[in-house]
């Protein structure tokens, strides 16, 4: 009996602390005016832009909304989230579509983002703070990681786990609002040695097939279907690469192409594009464009979109 009464007292105390401090954290969290979580929240609940760009850090760094707005005459928001892949992109898309219907969605695809890897699920914790607003959609994707996550999310403190420092950081040093675009102004120095290419007689490395994660493939298919149902024009894009990438035997590229062909989706590939290949001055690091590179790329993508969808331009 003593154990029961003591346990009840502890549980009540936990509930009180969780409720009070959880509510405080929730309030503070949604007062953010910049940073990753602000951009996610803006995408989910505020954006009514006509062009929305989804993707990982490549999307965030490569697509300049100002350029799209100027070239297409349509409002644009970059909803790229660093470190995230298709599960989060699809979740954001579904939440957006509950509220508004953009004219066009661009999905920047990382070709390696469909293989089995626990990080796809570990990083879903970025969605926890938004669970209470969109429990159905977010709960469904979180259940892919664990059926217990939704029980943990009953705790308000757990919903805002590891966010308080983030909030303080962007309160003290707010980021400039570029409609979601993450500009990098540095330039990658050209290396002293040239990149070694394989000799013609040299055997290619043995390719070991990596297993796809069926949840990720299904999410990409669903992303396409969601856009189709709402008559949203969809563009899939592969970002430019600095160094030559052999995709001839890349299962992932083949899989993505098959999805785009089946769903009549435009696929723009800038892998090994000569305008970017070896152009160190356009890159901030080996995987991301800098601001000049992003502006050039955005212009190219805009031109392509304008050619493919001539009726899209606003009168």
């Amino acid at each position, binding site marked *: 009996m*003593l*154990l029961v009464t*003591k346990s009840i*007292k*502890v549980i009540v*105390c*936990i509930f*009180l*602390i*969780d409720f009070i*401090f959880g509510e405080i*954290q929730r309030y503070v969290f949604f007062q953010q005016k910049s*940073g*990753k979580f602000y951009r996610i929240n803006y995408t989910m609940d505020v954006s009514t832009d006509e062009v929305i760009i989804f993707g990982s850090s490549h999307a965030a760094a490569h697509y300049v909304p100002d350029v799209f707005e100027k070239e297409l005459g349509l409002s644009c928001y970059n909803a790229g989230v*660093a470190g995230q892949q298709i599960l989060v992109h699809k979740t954001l898309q579904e939440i957006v579509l509950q509220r508004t219907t953009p004219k066009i969605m661009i999905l920047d695809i990382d070709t390696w983002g469909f293989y089995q890897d*626990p990080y796809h699920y*570990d*990083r879903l*914790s970025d969605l926890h703070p938004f669970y209470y607003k969109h429990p159905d959609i977010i709960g469904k994707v979180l259940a892919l990681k664990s059926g*217990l996550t939704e029980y*943990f999310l009953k*705790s308000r*403190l*757990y919903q*805002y*786990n*590891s966010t*308080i*420092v*983030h909030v303080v*950081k962007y309160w003290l040093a707010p980021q400039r609002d570029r409609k979601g675009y*993450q500009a990098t102004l540095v330039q990658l120095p050209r290396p002293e040695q040239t990149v070694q290419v394989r000799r013609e007689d040299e055997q290619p490395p043995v390719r070991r097939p990596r297993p796809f994660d069926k949840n990720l493939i299904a999410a990409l298919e669903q992303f396409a279907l969601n856009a189709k149902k709402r008559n949203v024009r969809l563009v899939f894009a592969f970002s430019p690469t600095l160094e030559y990438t052999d995709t001839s035997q890349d299962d992932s590229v083949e899989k993505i192409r098959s999805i785009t062909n089946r769903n009549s989706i435009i696929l723009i590939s800038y892998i090994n594009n000569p305008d970017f290949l070896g152009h160190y001055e356009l890159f901030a690091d080996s995987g991301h464009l800098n601001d000049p590179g992003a502006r050039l790329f955005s212009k190219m993508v805009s031109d392509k979109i304008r050619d493919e969808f001539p009726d899209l331009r606003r009168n």
Partner: protein
Amino acid sequence: MKFNSLYYLAFLSIVVLLYYVVGSRYRWVLLLLASYYFYASWKPVYLFVIVGTTVINYFVAVVMARQDEKRRRRKFLLISLASGLGLLFFFKYFNFFSASIQDILRGAGFFVKSPLLNIIMPIGISFYTLQTIGYILDVYHGRVRPERHFGTFAVYVSFFPIVLSGPIERSGHLLPQLERKNKIVFSYENISKGAKLIILGLFYKLVVADRAAIYVNAVYANAGKHSGLTFLVATIFFSFQIYSDFAGYSYVAIGSAKLLGIDILQNFNRPFFAASIKDFWRRWHISLSTWLRDYIFLPVAYSFSRMLKKEKYLSIRTDRIIYFCAIFITFFLCGLWHGANWTFIAWGCLHGFYLAVENILGLKTKRRLLNIGITYILVLFTWIFFRAASISDAFAIVGKIFTKPGSLFIPQGSDIVAPIYTGMAILILLVMELKQEFFPSWFSFFNNERELVRVFSYAAIIALILSLGVFDGGQFIYAQF
């Protein structure tokens, strides 16, 4: 089944409930089934190894105790040691020694390909092997009687709270508590203490250790990229990571056993406040250090003392020679036990060297805080070797710290929060332990006489875990042993 998972908490709750329902006569059955289930949850095939170890040592102990002649007892002792150490060598050290021999031969100009085994080491083998060796040696020396009940002995070897990563128990301490005649009754005090220890352990693990690991792993995974200052900060973080990870595990283990009314040996005692290396080893991994003292250091020192009869050799006092040799052998083995890599051996040897110098020169100032600072720095240096992937990496890191400090790696964008949270977590930990070490009689939260303060304190710890804990993809470092 990781300790920091809901599955373990559910498993533990069921075991505790059934434990007090089942009579004391059949508790060994419940504990044995639970322990084997827990062990098999990692990999079922591992069970063959632990059961095999149990069977061999059970029969060896029983038969050995019947032998009057020491020579005959020694034969059975050797059988047990050979089987236990043989299994450990096979699973843990074969590839290491094979690769090392290959490197040595190649260095001498002989190009041979040493065989390598493609096997996975059974989890916890390093811990339960030491525990059973300790038992066999205790029976051999007549310190304990052999356990006649096979089930009780099997529980002793595989007891689920401690089988993976200790504390390494002593037969004289744990076996009597597991015996059927020991009628442990339900008590609120045991449940309360056990639950508190588990909560504390989860705080250490989830809030401090797993948080520190994020920055440490990012830095040590790119040994060539980062500056000396970055490595210094990462190593400081690592010192807290490894302590919190292991101490956290130990608290959960001790707390889990306490729920069952079973007392397990303390394993840590605020090692950051050690005022000498000797003091450090009285506070760090206490179950291992005392095991090494009783089963390696003292016997080796005794053997040397029987061999070395003179007072001095080469103008060095014999007692110092004995101490130096015994401590070096002990800590060489300590390092080797921690891992099949020269980095662990280097770590162990460094500690052996420190202890030898400390013993011979008696280096210690009169200021306790200064001694604590010096000890922390000396231990911090050894952690570089413990964490580095190779000896060459370790030396490169040491070189960078002393000659190329450079600028501190601060993660960009949202990633900057990782070291900030680590700093916060370390600060909370230090405040807690500082208070316990230097001001134990001051206002206590967790042992306050007012119930409301106690309840609020534990609720606050749980709230901190929910708010700051790392819940994604955590693994205990020591599980690899």
